[in-house]
């Protein structure tokens, strides 16, 4: 992963919001949804604002106390995971966005975890077509789509 690489949220498939340092991310295409808190949420916000990977690392180092190497590795790992989950995609932004310095005291760093939930997939994977009548209208035979 290049340090100058930038990403953006994979919209319109992906919708998200961050409230009080917790992010909820939904992929409308595949039915998975995700949550991130604390460090992960800060990384998500920075990435979604198209900061370069290098800028994100510097921002996390600025806001959190921890081993510099571990912070860098964790940021890289999370961004890689976000891209693998197709929540973000590479963006050709020139990387000139400036990282804002935090006025808050640095907090202890904890490895960010991307929580993934698949309990809505059944709703998307309903197969409505089991057979159609001579006119072409389906008999679905599906169970309750709740």
């Amino acid at each position: 992963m290049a340090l100058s690489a930038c990403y953006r949220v994979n919209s319109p498939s992906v919708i998200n919001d961050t409230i009080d340092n917790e992010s909820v991310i939904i992929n409308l295409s595949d039915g998975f949804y995700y949550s991130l808190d604390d460090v992960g949420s800060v990384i998500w916000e920075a990435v979604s604002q198209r900061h370069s990977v290098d800028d994100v690392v510097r921002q996390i180092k600025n806001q959190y106390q921890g081993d510099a190497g571990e912070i860098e590795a964790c940021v890289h790992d999370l961004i890689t995971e976000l891209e693998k989950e197709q929540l973000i995609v590479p963006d050709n932004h020139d990387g000139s966005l400036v990282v804002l310095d935090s006025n808050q005291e640095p907090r202890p760093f904890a490895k960010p975890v991307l929580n993934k939930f698949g309990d809505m997939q059944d709703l998307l994977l309903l197969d409505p077509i089991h057979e159609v009548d001579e006119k072409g209208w389906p008999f679905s035979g599906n169970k309750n789509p709740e």
Partner: protein
Amino acid sequence: MSVNKSFSSNKETVTFFDEVLEKFEEACEKSAEGLMERYYEIGGYTLCLKYCGSALMDHVSPSLEHGLRPASDTPDLTICLWDSASGNTEMVPPPWATKEFEHQGEIISFNNEHIATLFQPGEDTLNLLDFSRDLGIFWRRDAINVPYYLTGAPLRSILHWWMSNNGRQFIHGAAVGRESGGVLLVGKGGSGKSTAAISCLNSNLSYVGDDYCLMALDPEPYVYSLYNSAKLNFDHFDRFPQLVPYLHNQHPSEEDKGLVILQRHFPEKLISGFTIKAVLIPRVLGNAQSQIHRTSAASALAALAPSTLFQLTRNRELSFRRISQLVKTVPAFILDSGTNIQSIPAVIETLLESNLVDN
């Protein structure tokens, strides 16, 4: 005929809509009972349902009948409902290829800014809405073997499409409270929304809905009753034996839920809506007594948004923004539902009287 994933012209979608509308009118002429109009107030709007005879009305009307109103010359939304069997009228063939039915029944090529089209899986119903005419069409092959979930929550898609464009958000959630305010109970199916809502029938709290409601954000978060049905799982039959004699579907299979039409048996427990004071996320830990704990707005967003969005087609991003706005406005709590059922409404009442919510 359009090709897969392409968008039909507005002319094609309107032509199909009008062909189906002509079939509805033909069916009304052929039907022995003819056209039967009923008016309802839903979400502050007047809904006119034009039934072709009583066959579908018997299945669609019960969960809406708490909103029955006198006839109006100026309904906000009109929906024509018919089935081919009782109307003695064949449906026109679908003007799209079979492969165009999406997993949730949406026909992408026949959805545009003017017309929404969906064949609802499981229900086997065609749902059409013409936004410019505020006119919907609901068709089924016949009125036989109508599933309980159609009767319990009829016209979901058409109502969601239209209400979404008119400031009302479809919500997958239950709502109980008082005229002065109440709570929204949210979470995926099986999380305990219905249990909590039904438990309030034997309390001082009133009932707005147990599964789907309408929400408005302006001027303040408000929930409107949509359906007066209560859905009972098989385990509810033991926990709420007093409701079993009132089952609308007298012999539900083990895969089905029992339906109680509350307007017919507990009309005094129903209210049309209230200001939302809090969002509650039920969970079952097995403790005897219920408890409530504060949780984050993001937890409420994660509990409510996916289970609402993935049951709907169209306007998902708008729905997400509205739900996000709601959880930023009112506090969220975890409701640990106790095995002592009556402790559920008790802790909700205590919450509503406390300074944890905006009074």
